[in-house]
């Protein structure tokens, strides 16, 4: 679904991503794992052309160079950003509306679907989004992204700041989404949770991919266990 070749990301003079290659096939869950500052977030932002980059990115068969972020989103590439970035000054329902801004015909149907998937959100539909707990905000962020009917859903550190039980819930939802036919690209510091649900994984270190393979195999790998799974 998306293939990335020779991606470099620059912040000013600093090179955060130093030439990586990876791909995500339709229907897969792929994880990018690595410690803080390894370049994972930068990679996701680069796929949406939100940051300065060099590289070949092919999404659904066409070259994404020179496309603006919002156009790529309209074509099915969606991101649940780091820190969730829900519109705290808007209500829950307004957040969902924002997700389906360009989709007036389908909005109500999509919204009701989200309320079925995430009943906790439905209860708070007219509350300001900023009043919700961390886990609820994460649900809202995901459902907001889903309102755009994405083909490839990217999630940037979905477990950040969440209690372990909630993390479990979130990752279960991610698996269900894949079952519904959405391809997933996941960036995570919580390597274990990510590897457990992924098909494939890439390990990012200092802007380079140092390892990749089938996720199940990597859980058992010694180097991975020592560095990212707490030995």
């Amino acid at each position, binding site marked *: 679904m998306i293939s990335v070749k020779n991606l470099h990301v620059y912040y000013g003079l600093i090179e955060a991503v130093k030439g990586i290659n990876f791909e995500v096939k339709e229907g897969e869950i792929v994880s990018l794992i690595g410690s803080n500052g390894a370049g994972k977030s930068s990679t996701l932002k680069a796929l949406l052309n939100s940051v300065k980059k060099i590289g070949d990115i092919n999404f659904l068969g066409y070259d994404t160079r020179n496309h603006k972020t919002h156009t790529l989103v*309209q074509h099915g590439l*969606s991101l649940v*950003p780091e820190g969730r970035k829900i*519109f*705290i*000054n808007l209500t829950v329902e307004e957040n969902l509306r924002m*997700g389906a*801004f*360009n989709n007036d015909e389908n909005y109500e149907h999509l919204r009701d679907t989200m309320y079925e998937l995430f009943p906790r959100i439905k209860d708070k539909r007219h509350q300001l989004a900023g009043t919700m707990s961390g886990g609820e905000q994460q649900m809202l962020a995901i459902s907001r992204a889903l309102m755009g009917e994405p083909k490839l859903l990217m999630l940037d550190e979905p477990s950040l700041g969440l209690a372990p039980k909630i993390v479990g819930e979130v990752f279960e939802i991610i698996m269900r989404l894949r079952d519904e036919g959405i391809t997933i690209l996941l960036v995570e510091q919580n390597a274990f949770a990510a590897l457990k649900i992924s098909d494939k994984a890439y390990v990012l270190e200092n802007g380079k991919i140092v390892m990749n393979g089938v996720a199940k195999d990597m859980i058992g790998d010694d180097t991975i266990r020592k560095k990212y799974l707490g030995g």
Partner: protein
Amino acid sequence: MFMQQMVNGFSLGSMYALIAIGYTMVYGVLRLINFAHGDIMMVGGFLGYFGIAVLDLPFGAAVLLAIVGSALLGMASDRVAYRPLRSAPKISLLITAIGVSFFLENAFNVFFGGVPKAFPVPAYLENVIDFMGLTMPVSAILVPIITAFLLAIILWVLYKTKYGMAIRALAFDVGTVNLMGIDANRIITLVFGMGSALAAVGGIFWAVNYPSVEPMMGVLVGLKAFAAAVVGGIGSVGGAVLGGLIIGFTEVVVIAFFPELGGYKDAFAFIFLILILLFKPTGILGIDFEKSRF
């Protein structure tokens, strides 16, 4: 006498409020003090003058010309001068805004001349009527009424329409709006258009009340209107109106009761600004940027 001053205060305050709304909305989405905004008010006044005195249009048509022309100019200034600098350091944007402001003032100076032009006020607006025991020109009473009406429209747009919701979302974070598949830049330009339209109305009100237009008329008014926006709570439309009314009232009432302070009329806005920065920098309606806006 007191009632008379109250109406005058409302009138002046409404004019400041209309211009302050534009400042506060642009600041809310871009964190930019659009120095050229006060000059848009001037352009509105001049377009009205041009429509009546040169093009021989009826008053209503001239006002329409002023509003549409100013809105287009405001949107154009965003497209041409501010949008290319979206990712530039803030100071570049501020400097450019000053440049646009200075350009508008001097361009109109060259084109129309610096001498104030008498604004041709239609007779029905100059009619003096008996209002609650006072004799006042119709225009003085219409100003607050129309302003309240426009304010209601703006709030309706912001809270009851899709695009208004997008504007509020922009105030939280521009990048996230793009993530929704929305071209944030287009919405930003829309904000400029709305603010400029309101400023144009303010310009027409000003032109009708004084009644003249001159190229520098937006300078001091703009400064005070921005101070009003800060005093009321920058980023909040309600705050802009509140701040505008406060400053308008103060100017009128203080001068009415202490005419010897007349020369200092223009200093009050500045004093209020310093006071609010000292005691409550987020403004009277104290919108905390992290929590909510507008």
